[in-house]
């Protein structure tokens, strides 16, 4: 079987983002960038399935500017076999991303597509589900356990009420939760080897799909700041403040 894993380059999760003064977005110059964390889980799960012998090939794909290739290189360094970089210098919404990924799926014909459940920059949580709908495939979102069978997958999903188990026929789209696995680090020899693995390049706007953005970003601003609080001297004062000042207990 074959897996396509989609990875996105985002501002590193440990970076405190800064909103631009003119409200046009957030500062990205000289900011540490990394692979979107749950995308690492998607890559890791793909590699584990390959190690189990059930999967023969892993193709890692990213969509973005030239630097986005770093995320594909990282996936190659932990075990993906080859990469695809769909070049685009401008932001594309999840709807457009899903259309591009559908084109890649039609070309590569994987049995499964693995993605992170959500990107930590735009926080949309849409791409995997949209791709599944466009392909008319089933989906398993927020996956925390994947069991691959001959023609299906049994998946445990993290839902608000607890856990849900579903079975989806192949081919299918899986979006990965952080609890699915513990992504491995690439070893230095594997990083060196990854440099020799091929990355095909495509150009997003040449794929013949409508990727025009439909949602216009009018303004980005900082959330309202909390007013500075006070330190209380002891527990009795704390309880008194909560009871008589904040009136919450």
């Amino acid at each position: 079987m074959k897996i396509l894993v989609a990875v996105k380059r985002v501002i590193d999760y440990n970076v405190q983002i800064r909103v631009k003064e003119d409200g046009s977005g957030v500062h990205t110059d000289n900011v540490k960038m990394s692979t979107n964390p749950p995308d690492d889980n998607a890559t890791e799960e793909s590699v584990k399935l390959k190690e189990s012998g059930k999967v023969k090939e892993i193709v890692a794909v990213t969509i973005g500017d030239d630097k986005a290739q770093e995320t594909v290189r990282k996936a190659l360094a932990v075990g993906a076999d080859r990469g695809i970089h769909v070049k685009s210098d401008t932001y594309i919404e999840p709807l457009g991303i899903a259309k591009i990924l559908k084109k890649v799926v039609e070309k590569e014909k994987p049995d499964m597509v693995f993605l992170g459940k959500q990107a930590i920059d735009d926080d949309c949580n849409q791409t995997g589900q949209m791709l599944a709908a466009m392909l008319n495939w089933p989906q398993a979102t927020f996956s925390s356990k994947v069991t691959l069978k001959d023609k299906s997958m049994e998946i445990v999903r993290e839902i608000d009420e607890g856990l849900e188990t579903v079975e989806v026929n192949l081919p299918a789209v899986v979006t990965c939760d952080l609890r699915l696995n513990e992504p491995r680090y690439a070893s230095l020899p594997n990083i060196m080897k990854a440099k020799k693995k091929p990355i095909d390049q495509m150009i997003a706007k040449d794929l013949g799909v409508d990727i025009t953005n439909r949602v216009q970003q009018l303004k980005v601003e900082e959330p309202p700041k909390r007013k500075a609080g006070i330190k209380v001297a002891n527990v009795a004062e704390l309880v008194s403040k909560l009871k008589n000042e904040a009136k919450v207990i």
Partner: protein
Amino acid sequence: MSVLLIAEHNNKNLKPFTLNAITAASKIDSEVHVLVAGSGSESVAKEAAAVPLVKKVLHCDSPNYQNYLPENLAPLVTKHSEKYDHIVASANTFGKNFMPRVAAALDTSQVSDVIKVKSPDTFVRPIYAGNAFATVKSNDKKRCVTIRPTSFEPAPKTGGSAQIDKVDAADIPNFSKFIKREETKSERPELGTARIVVSGGRGLESGENFKLINDIADKLNAAVGASRAAVDAGYISNDHQVGQTGKVVVPDLYIAVGISGAIQHLAGMKESKIIVAINKDGEAPIFSIADYGLEADLFKALPEFLSELNKLNTIQK
């Protein structure tokens, strides 16, 4: 101009967040219709019809909708979306699961996790885990919107009498199967909707010590939360996790105990009305957003806190 809201329920009752979503939908347009898709779900349709803000209920009852598999639910929503300008659902694991399938089928760009409705086409939504707010305008004709339930008040439940229309089911693709759902059982309020949340972090040092948190939570009728560090250390199960990768909570009172205040945790609780931090490290970042900070050893402070609470004549429920 009308809004189709997809109800979340358990085939007996509406889930509480549906009421918050109804409020949000009514801010987009006053003509709010609710789709109840379920199995043996007559009581849910009646409950939705009794909500005064609801003008009509579309009810589709079929075993295919019992477990709201997105592969089955999305074609039904799409089928009945024609007359509506907006399709709305809660941005929880229910709405997040099926709504993008609807948006893709309608070739519309979804607006996720809306915290404010500025106009029928303009919304405010958090990005970067709530570290920035984006105001966005949707230029699609038909708009799929998910709303963050805790940003809207629940709609009043009774007094309405909307018409209930039975609607046709849609074809199902038959390529996914529900197997089971294991709901986390708790005597305490649900983390996402509790009025008070008491959370513990790595400072608790062990799972057993979470008893100190539980005792306070029981006294205050609060939900129990945790930082990712405490969950990763195995002190408590991950359904208690508050933060960027866990639950986002907006209680009246959030008490953070032994939590330093990593960016990822703050993203899940900093909109709480009142924040209390108890930490022995006076420099911990959590103090910078706390309304009331207590620099103290939690193993001394929590038992004291409980005994002070026991002295109070009344505690709000």
